[in-house]
């Protein structure tokens, strides 16, 4: 049965991550007030990616899961990137 369950994550860890998430939220809002042109959107997406990694790895316990879960996630994200990226081949060059 040991394979089926993992150690409980201490409350402290979760709370720390939560604080980090709130800080990151504050950062995006703050940065978005500064005009940086196209950079704004990349920063916003970058921070969002960091936030979501925190949620995925800690809140969602991906850290403790086997490789299979991680590979699955990677496959899904690459397919996602392809779907969005390849569509640009049409839209940007029309």
């Amino acid at each position, binding site marked *: 049965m040991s394979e089926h369950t993992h150690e409980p994550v201490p409350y402290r860890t979760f709370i720390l991550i939560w604080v980090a998430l709130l800080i990151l939220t504050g950062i995006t809002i703050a940065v978005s007030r500064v005009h940086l042109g196209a950079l704004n959107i990349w920063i916003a997406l970058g921070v969002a990616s960091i936030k979501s990694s925190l949620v995925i790895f800690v809140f969602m316990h991906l850290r403790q899961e086997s490789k299979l879960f991680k590979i699955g996630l990677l496959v899904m994200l690459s*397919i996602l990137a*392809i779907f969005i990226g*390849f*569509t640009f*081949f*049409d*839209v*940007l*060059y*029309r």
Partner: protein
Amino acid sequence: MSEKTTYTGFWQESPRTGILGWLLTTDHKRIGILYLGCIITMFIVAAILGLAIRLELIAPGRTIMDAQTYNATFTVHGIIMIFMFLIPSIPAAFGNLLLPIHIGARDVSFPKLNLLSWYCYIVGGVLAVTSIFSGGGAPDTGWTFYVPFSTQTNTNVSLAAFAAFMLGFSSILTGINFVTTVHRLRCKGMKWGRLPLFVWTLYATAWIQVLATPMIGITLVLIILERTFGAGLFDVARGGDPILYQHLFWIYSHPAVYIMILPGMGVISEIIPTFSRKPLFGYWAMALSSLAIAFAGSLVWAHHMYASGMSDLAILIFSFLTFIVAIPSAIKVFNWVSTLYKGSIELAPPMLFALAFIFNFAIGGLGGLALGAAASDIHLHDTTFVVGHFHYVMFGGGGFALFAAMHYWLPKFTGRMYNHKMAVIGWALLFVGFNVTYMAMQAVGIMGMPRRYYDYIPEFTTLNLVSTIGSWVMAVGLIIMFANLWHGLRKGRPVGKNPWGGATLEWDIPSPPPMENFGEEDPVVTKGPYEFKGVVADEY
């Protein structure tokens, strides 16, 4: 032969008896049978519509129906054939029947989810049928639901789209189930290298189902929202883009064609070794090419859009990738053929269907190459050549693979054998009729006849007539085939557990298999799926 034996095995054992024992079952084999029944029913309905299409096209002008009916007919024909017949056919019916047995498991990972997925299928099917008879009448958009037409027509598009959404959901649940099952429930000794190829193809298919199907979900939801709120998401005047709709649609629907063909390829990869009594040539190449098709197949969707007004750069890239997907298919064809070399070949009915599959699929697939090349597709796009192409791969490929599977595994799951002579007659008529029908269709497409044409100019008459005649030969063949199978499963001679001399796990257990497949003890696998040494075929 005429003694009235009732089926044993999973047909009998069930915690509940009677109809509820079926409707509330969580046994993978019973669910597989439920699927199979529905799928065959759907196929017959849609095939009759196909026959009606051909009758209308027998001569120019109106013959048996008006234009609106015609448009609804091919739309419903396409929707049923794709979403309710071919996509669930092999994965949901035979996948359910066989996947757990093939990997030595007692059931799939989520049996209840499996049943839910069947109910989603039923709800989708019922809604689709309702959409024909209610509201503004049967949808008339073509199975592709292209905007802006689909947002403007008064017919019952929203309901049909919602039906397709439910069917997609069903497909997703099956996919989730199969991926998990393959990862978690392989029995002792069932290493990846010992999986039957049917399992490999189901596994690859399941990933497509999981990762591509949601896209059609959101696309159809958008169509429905567009029709209800009229927001103009695909309307240029309101900042939308009608071509983007096509991207969203094909992002799913191209990979979907591989959902339709991959499990069929798996079936063929089971049948050919068994009837050659020889290991499949190039096991790993076959396994990996399945994954390659699934992955590369997700990158080529825009080859349906060369004439849509898409950018030329996109055409360059998507045309290139399209040709890349053809390579793993070619590897498969070559490996099947070389499996025959120095074998001991028996032309039993399943083998005949498998060989016909290779031939038809080669024609369809090679025709796909002419469509994949940018210049030639400009001429062939949206002509009946495309219609010919996809009937070759979907019916000549996917459909024939399903028929092969039915002939191959019917004895296993019913414990009875059909009449071989009738099977060969049915096969021959079907094969000839099929090729006449769709070869003529391809030819008239090369001459320039657009598809979805209710009426056509006189130059196209002869070939259309030939095609219609072919469709009737095919119909006769199909009726013989179905009648023979039906008769076989009711009154056929009883057979033992291994009539063909197959080496995969299902042939080790009784026919029909018992409720939990393997009795008290879980199987332990010590050899590959195509090691025929020591396998003895039962007399039948």
